[in-house]
């Protein structure tokens, strides 16, 4: 096997890695860039998380206690922008950088210099976005969906927000182009597309979604920019525009974006469940086709986010039924994962625990999504906490849990050391219990009519809000454990990990053929695949 020659070096920094800060500033190595993406995502996760804590603190009791309503609205808006564009998306790009070349047997990403640019744009984008807190008028507070005319009333932060979104968009488009080129051009001989690990497949499809939709968002925010500063009237009825059109353009991006956030999670779970069930994945090809179908459907369902704007019955029926159709390929996936575990020899290491929680809790989020898809019912649920509960179930115990599962799965491969499994199991249980205490009551609040994005509420909602806030604080605190566990493993605590890492012989991903920690350079000569 081709990886044998890479063994000579052992430690982290002895694989001809450049020394000093230049290693990171001018990094072109996919592993270094992947690490930077992951660290960046973690920092953003905590900044966005701190904002969530402010939100839950203010909502702990009815009445206005801690922050004024304008700042509260900034918190909800910035929490969403930071978690989506700064937390989850860079985390996926980081995992893609680290793992895709290793999984397809490529020496690096296809376009290493562009890879460096696409990472280094991000810190600048988020510095701009966060600077807006210090401008007159404060940070953006019109909601992450940026609906006009409200968003056009923002203070001086408006221009910063739009440019920050442009930069995030450019960064993620470049990241996506890199993934496509790497997968299409750099696979080792014999690594057919339909032999690729599912993480590569779901990322390939995600990358196409990104290239197709991020520019549409860029267009929409550019129109906002010119409406605000240059007197155009794309969304201003006084000049022949229409604010509802913004919602159409935004959600034409926004719905595929939802799948951009979750498809790589499907890939990770599709690798972890077979590993710890000690069985090959059930229905590999159907997983690939299901992912493709979801991606296709994501382009024709956008208006289910805006049933209440007033659309013809035929439109409501179309968007309702096409949305429900997504349950079919998603169901295929859920059943395939379940069937993979059937009669498997299952063990419950932390990655598997997170993957299992993903399976259960993402499905709950999927079901509440089906409820929201029912157009007549949506008129009741629209802009209530039921929606908040729904998308947090698919994003937190969905996407975020899958990211954590992925980190716990591959961390020994990255650091060469097994992390503290016991502590990670604690982290899992604390997170899983608190995330449900946090988000499940929001279903009740929403069904009872509590609107989203408000700093104060009717006293009838008091009890469940207090419960949710307690869950929120517990979930937030639990994540400190995650940092501790990862740091310990990075600093070399814990037993040395083998090349295969996990007690499993089924996983065929090439990442398990290189030693742990993965050397700075891998697959300089292509591996041979049977």
């Amino acid at each position: 096997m081709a990886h044998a020659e890479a063994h000579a070096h052992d430690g982290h920094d002895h694989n001809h890695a450049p020394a000093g800060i230049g290693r990171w500033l001018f990094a072109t190595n996919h592993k270094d860039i992947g690490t930077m993406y992951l660290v960046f995502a973690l920092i953003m996760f905590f900044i966005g998380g701190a904002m969530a804590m402010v939100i839950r603190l203010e909502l702990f009791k009815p009445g206005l206690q801690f922050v004024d309503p304008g700042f509260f609205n900034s918190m909800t808006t910035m929490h969403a922008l930071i978690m989506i564009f700064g937390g989850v998306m860079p985390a996926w790009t980081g995992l893609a950088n680290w793992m895709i070349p290793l999984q397809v047997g490529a020496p690096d990403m296809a376009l290493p210099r562009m890879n460096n640019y696409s990472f280094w744009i991000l810190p600048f984008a988020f510095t701009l976005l966060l600077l807006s807190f210090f401008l007159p008028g404060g940070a953006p507070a019109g909601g992450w969906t940026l609906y006009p005319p409200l968003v056009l009333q923002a203070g001086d932060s408006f221009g910063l927000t739009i440019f920050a979104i442009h930069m995030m968009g450019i960064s993620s488009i470049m990241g996506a182009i890199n993934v496509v080129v790497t997968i299409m051009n750099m696979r080792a001989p014999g690594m057919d597309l339909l032999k690729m690990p599912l993480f590569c497949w779901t990322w390939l499809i995600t990358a196409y979604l990104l290239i197709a939709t991020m520019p549409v968002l860029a267009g929409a925010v550019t129109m906002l920019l010119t409406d605000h500063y240059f007197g155009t009237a794309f969304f201003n009825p006084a000049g022949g525009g229409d604010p509802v059109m913004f919602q159409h353009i935004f959600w034409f991006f926004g719905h595929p974006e939802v799948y951009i956030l979750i498809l790589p999670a499907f890939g990770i779970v599709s690798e972890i469940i077979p590993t710890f069930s000690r069985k090959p994945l059930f229905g590999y090809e159907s997983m690939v086709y299901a992912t493709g179908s979801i991606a296709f459907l994501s382009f024709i369902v956008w208006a289910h986010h805006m049933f209440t704007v007033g659309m013809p019955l035929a439109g409501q029926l179309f968007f309702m039924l096409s949305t429900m159709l997504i349950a079919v390929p998603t169901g295929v996936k859920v059943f395939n994962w379940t069937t993979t575990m059937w009669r498997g020899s299952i063990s419950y290491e932390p990655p598997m625990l997170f993957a299992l929680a993903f399976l259960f809790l993402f499905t709950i989020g999927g079901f509440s999504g089906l409820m929201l898809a029912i157009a007549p019912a949506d008129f009741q649920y629209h802009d209530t906490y039921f929606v908040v509960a729904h998308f947090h179930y698919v994003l937190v115990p969905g996407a975020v849990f899958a990211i954590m599962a992925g980190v716990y799965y591959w961390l020994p491969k990255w650091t060469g050391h097994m992390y503290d499994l016991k502590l990670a199991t604690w982290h899992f249980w604390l997170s899983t219990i608190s995330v449900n205490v946090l988000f499940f009551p929001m279903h009740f609040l929403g069904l009872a009519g509590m609107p989203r994005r408000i700093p104060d509420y009717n006293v009838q909602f008091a009890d469940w809000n207090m419960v949710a806030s307690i869950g929120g604080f517990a979930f937030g605190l639990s994540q400190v454990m995650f940092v501790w566990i990862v740091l310990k493993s990075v600093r070399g605590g814990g037993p040395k990990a083998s090349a295969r890492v996990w007690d499993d012989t089924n996983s065929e991903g090439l990442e398990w053929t290189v030693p742990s920690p993965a050397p700075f350079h891998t697959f300089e000569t292509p591996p041979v695949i049977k």
Partner: protein
Amino acid sequence: MNEPVNEPVNEPVNEPGNTPTGKPPTTNRTLAGKLVLFAAGSFAFGFALVPLYDVLCSVWEVGSRWTGEKATTVVEHPQEDRLVTVEFIASVPDNGTWQFAPKLAAMQVHPGKLYSAEFSAANLSGHDTVGQAVPSIAPSVAMQHFRKTECFCFTPQPFRKGETRNLPVRFVVDRDLPADVDRVTLSYAMYEQPKMAAAR
């Protein structure tokens, strides 16, 4: 490789030549170029949605601009046996820049008859400015039955520094206002137009 390679060859070793499919390989640069074009196409598509939206809305007659409602002449046809209370509210979102209030707090009107009311506004901002009033009608079922034939909210209202002016609104409450509605509230919020818009 079927492309002339005149760029520095510092690309990884197992790149193009050996794609597993055996098809003629594209270089990384070519494929990346195509994907950049794809992204540029998506950007253009976002803007193409603007005219497309107008076309589709008019074809399907969706949206308030396309419902086919034409300007009509109001024919007064008062319903003498019914009285509806119309209340007026004025508000200013920014403190200190406007004084804005209705002349009358409420009126008793007969549906089908044309009435007029006045608001008074004063520019306290200390400079010349342009105000834009944004109307709102409650309850929402009354919205489509409350017709303004003339309103200061239809156009931006320029005010000189310190100017005070009366602003008229003329309206008819439709005869087909639902029978259970006996009170309609017309409220205005007065905004200062952003500078760019005012300059036009």
